[in-house]
């Protein structure tokens, strides 16, 4: 169960007022999903971990003021993404790599396999993996943010660099498109994939 944004606003306020536990509450809640998000932007595990470390260190150290505390989750995701991209760019300048990895947004799935139905499940998951590869990375990122976080369309738009309306349209167009191509059932399955 995820706290809603007004509750996180409260937690943030408590942290700003010096509540010693609010900080660890925020870390405890968001570290995993931030990692799940980051690892889709780059497959460099250590880099994602470093960025999460920096993110929380900076929050504590600089006692960051949020314009609106309701935006805590948005702030975390946007900061993490910006930082990952910045670090990758620095890195690739040094090692003369292209920044192709930046918007990789590679979704990896693993089915929860049932013993008696293992094979067909595997087939289905493989099929889904292929289908997902046909969706652009940006759309995949939008789907992840839509289904795996508590962010709203405005915030997702900020992160991916589009308007809220455009994000919503894209999400539904992608879902409809998939449904038309692959049937209702697939669509339901998809929503699961994006769920933590």
């Amino acid at each position: 169960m995820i706290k809603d944004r007004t509750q996180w606003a409260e937690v943030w306020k408590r942290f700003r007022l010096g509540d010693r536990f609010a900080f660890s509450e925020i870390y405890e809640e968001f570290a995993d999903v931030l990692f799940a998000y980051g690892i889709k932007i780059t497959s460099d595990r250590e880099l994602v971990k470093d960025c999460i470390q920096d993110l929380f260190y900076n929050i504590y150290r600089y006692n960051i003021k949020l314009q609106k505390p309701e935006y805590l989750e948005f702030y975390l995701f946007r900061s993490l993404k910006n930082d990952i991209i910045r670090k990758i760019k620095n890195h690739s300048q040094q090692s003369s790599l292209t920044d192709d990895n930046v918007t990789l947004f590679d979704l990896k799935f693993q089915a929860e396999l049932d013993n008696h139905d293992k094979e067909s499940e595997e087939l289905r998951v493989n099929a889904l993996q292929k289908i997902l590869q046909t969706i652009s990375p940006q759309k995949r990122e939008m789907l992840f943010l839509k289904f795996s976080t508590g962010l709203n369309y405005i915030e997702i738009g900020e992160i991916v660099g589009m308007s809220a309306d455009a994000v919503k349209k894209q999400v539904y167009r992608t879902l409809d498109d998939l449904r038309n191509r692959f049937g209702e059932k697939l669509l339901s399955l998809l929503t699961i994939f994006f769920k933590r």
Partner: protein
Amino acid sequence: MVFNEQKYIENPLFIDWVFCPNPAIDKYWEDYILKHPDEELQVAELKSRLIELKYADDSLTPEEKIEIAEHVVDRIEMAEESRKRRNLVFSFMKYAAVALIFAVIGGLVVYLKSDNQAIYKQMAGQLVQIPSEGKGPLLITSTGENLKLRKTNSSVDYTHKGNVVLNNDSVFKTQDEDEGVMNQLVIPYGNQSKVTLADNTNVWLNAGSRLIYPTTFKGKTREVLLFGEAYFEVAKNAEKPFIVKTSDIQIRVLGTQFNVSAYAEDKLIQTVLKEGSVEILDNAANIFSRKVVLKPNQMASFSKTTNETALDEVDANYYTLWTKGLLSFDDIDFDKILKKVERFYNISVDFSEPGLRAIRISGKLDLKGARSEVLEYLEKVSGTKIKKLNENQFIVNK
């Protein structure tokens, strides 16, 4: 809209119901279906489809999650030290952050690092690790100083200026700064102690317990961290709630008297209210969790395994007798009483036959008396023989 499942897909409660159900959310959807019977089929069908597959992606391992947290607190510590200033929020935060993460991830594992010199690890199911050289209670100050309190029944007093009075005589100053710093009091088995906090709240700590608290209370709340058992007489201050944090739950009060038993090795965290009122919150509280509000002479038993809290009517006096060195029991399992006696005398008692554990006994013990007398008394009320194997080990025979 072509996509007629939109209203469920857009509803986080629906996705949570499918993947992380809990009784409250089940109830929500039961009620929802009662109100909208025409949607029942659609809801059930969608749910059954969704549940078929689950998404698992690269995730942080618990170790990695802790590792990151440790790096964060280490860096904060370094930054703070370079400013040559200890910060109340920081030192507590560091402990709390790491402890909470461990508590959530690995059952109850407490990891405490105090000024780079004392590291305590307390694993779930294990007894509290007390420094071997410390036979008596130990007061650990924020600067890492370890002060041994010689008496087995010691007292520690904090004055408003942050001075500490030990056993009513020796006085020392904690810090020149008037900012509060964190202290912890470690009570080994075989000891008890009383501490008077800066706000005049009295805390009696039972054997095998640990209390972490600031020398003065800054901020909007008064917070302490407890492992083990303590009886609190909280000084009234309606503007600054007093909060007792434990591994799994926290207890919020304004001014009242209550007992909390939260030993790592026990499956239950029990809160008994003597006077006033308290609120109990699961540390993992969410919008669906209900606060438990206790009335005097009620006991809330939070189960660490099911995360549920049961309420019972009890006699609160029974649960606070230990502060006076007394132990009273009425139709209680023999092994439960022996557990308390073990903690009090720092001994270990085994049973030759498992059946002996469940003997129900009633009586009253004065733990201030000689250990041998107490054990003799227990033999009498249980109808067993308690044989001494060596100085600290005993076995219960038929």
